[in-house]
């Protein structure tokens, strides 16, 4: 179980445990939220894990966590699992995320179309150099990097670019750890890879950012283009799921209230892309709908 029941103390006095787990993409955001919440409510004991979106849902449906972070919406199998455990839940979008496509600074490329990306990354692709995609591009032999098959980023990218979740060429170098991918691309003259935008932000000097042309011209990811979803199709929403059972605990409710109320600050602290006002409003409403009588 998630821990002891806490009493809903007065302003800033929420106490008791709150178990948050799930996506590692959302982790920085959840961590910053928990930290802020903890400062206001010293009695509250928030834990944040990063079991991954799938791992998070597993625990969440089993009733082990109060809040589950997710970098994608919940899937059929997971819904089934939750149903089986009689766990009912609600979904809140808490931030946005983009996937950055990057190359080694030595590999000069400014923009790729989704079609080119697909040609490069799809199942069975044996593209060895960018020149095979476009004669103007360098013919450096490529070293491909990407997240491991276990991450939400992988699922999202393969879905959006290759059209089927999990469909990808297999001779790239995957890692679950985005830092490792940064290392890989930065360390390999022919390095090309994709991963969460924030990792690009932190390593701009080592990487060359590639714009993506999803039909509407070449757009480079940035906080703004991700937030307004103009960086297509590689922008995505990030979620927190909360269960009914958890919401009964006043501290959980207080926590979620805090998250929504301070969404922008938290996102900034976490160096993650904040919600648009519209998105924020939708989440706020969703939360208040959840609020127990």
């Amino acid at each position, binding site marked *: 179980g998630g821990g002891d029941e806490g009493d809903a103390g007065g302003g800033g006095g929420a106490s008791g445990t709150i178990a948050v*787990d799930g996506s590692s993409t959302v982790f920085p955001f*959840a961590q910053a939220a928990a930290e802020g919440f*903890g400062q206001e409510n010293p009695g509250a004991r928030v834990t944040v894990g990063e079991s991954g979106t799938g*791992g998070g849902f597993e625990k969440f449906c089993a009733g082990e966590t109060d809040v589950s972070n997710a970098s994608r919406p919940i899937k059929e199998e997971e819904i089934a699992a939750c149903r089986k455990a009689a766990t009912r839940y609600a979904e809140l979008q808490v931030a946005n995320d983009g996937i950055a496509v990057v190359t080694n600074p030595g590999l000069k490329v400014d923009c790729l179309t989704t079609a080119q990306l697909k040609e490069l990354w799809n199942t069975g692709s044996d593209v060895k150099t960018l020149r095979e995609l476009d004669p103007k591009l360098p013919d450096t032999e490529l070293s491909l990097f990407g997240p491991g098959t276990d991450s939400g980023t992988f699922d999202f990218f393969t879905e959006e670019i290759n059209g089927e979740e999990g469909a990808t060429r297999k001779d790239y170098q995957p890692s679950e*750890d985005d*830092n490792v991918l940064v290392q890989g691309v930065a360390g390999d003259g022919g390095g090309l890879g994709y991963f969460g935008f924030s990792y690009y*932000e932190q390593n701009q000097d080592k990487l060359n950012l590639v714009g993506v042309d999803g039909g509407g011209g070449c757009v480079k990811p940035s906080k703004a283009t991700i937030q307004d979803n103009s960086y297509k199709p590689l922008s995505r929403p990030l979620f927190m799921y909360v269960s009914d059972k958890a919401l009964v605990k006043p501290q959980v409710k207080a926590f979620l209230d805090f998250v929504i109320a301070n969404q922008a600050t938290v996102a900034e602290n976490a160096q993650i892309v904040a919600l648009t006002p519209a998105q924020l409003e939708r989440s706020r409403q969703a939360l208040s709908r959840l609020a127990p009588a």
Partner: protein
Amino acid sequence: MSARRAREVGFHGVLLGCLSLSVLLLGLLLYDVVSDGASRLSVDLLNRFPSFDPQRAGLESAFWGTVWLMGTCAAFIVPVGVATAVYLEEYADRERWWNRLIEVNVQNLAAVPSIVYGILGLAFLVRGPLSLGRVVLAGALTLGLLVLPVVIIAAREAIRAVPSSIREGSLALGATQWQTIWRQVLPAAVPGIATGVILALSRAIGETAPLILVGAATFVAFNPSGLDSGFTALPLQIFNWISQPQPEFKVLAAAGIIVLLMLLLTMNAAAIWLRNRYERKW
């Protein structure tokens, strides 16, 4: 004769090279870590909770989490490990298949990868029969089970090192078997057992994979308050920091590694002290 001598000198050189290379590389690693992390090494590090802001982040909760884990782990492995060792050494009749099974089993467990223990901890302690949740107790027991074979094997060796003449001497005075074990064998084996326990704990303290699998949280902004409290631990925190995109966290991670190494150093020093202090040539 001089060819012999030359070979001797060459061999010496090669051996020295082996050792130097080993020490050199490990020294390089340490240097790498220390030079990265030294700047962040301060008391504050231990007085602060983790944070999104690398400037403010510390490992208080991870440190105390580790302390709790180790304490609980020790409280588990010492009685169970010693009891098992005593049973195997003093009571078990090796002719019986079940006792041989236990023996072989312990040896096997010692070789099982730590990650498998993570699976076990998740399935049986956090969930399943015990359903403890992701609390100190579950983490400690997982690590405990992981290093239990180490303790059992060390304790067995320590107990075996107590010469049987001590046992016979005691029994011949009319002491019962348990009196003999409790008053003679165990006291004499304490240094060996203690060394084994410390070595086991120093293995447990650095384990990351099983805790990850058990699903220990990485952001915990409070110190454990009991066995049923959520927790994080030093290696988890270090791993987390290493995985953060901001380079400042790498420095923090290095500082965390230094802290962990210092804990290790302390424990090893204790083990060495114990070993030297009580080393006994029978």
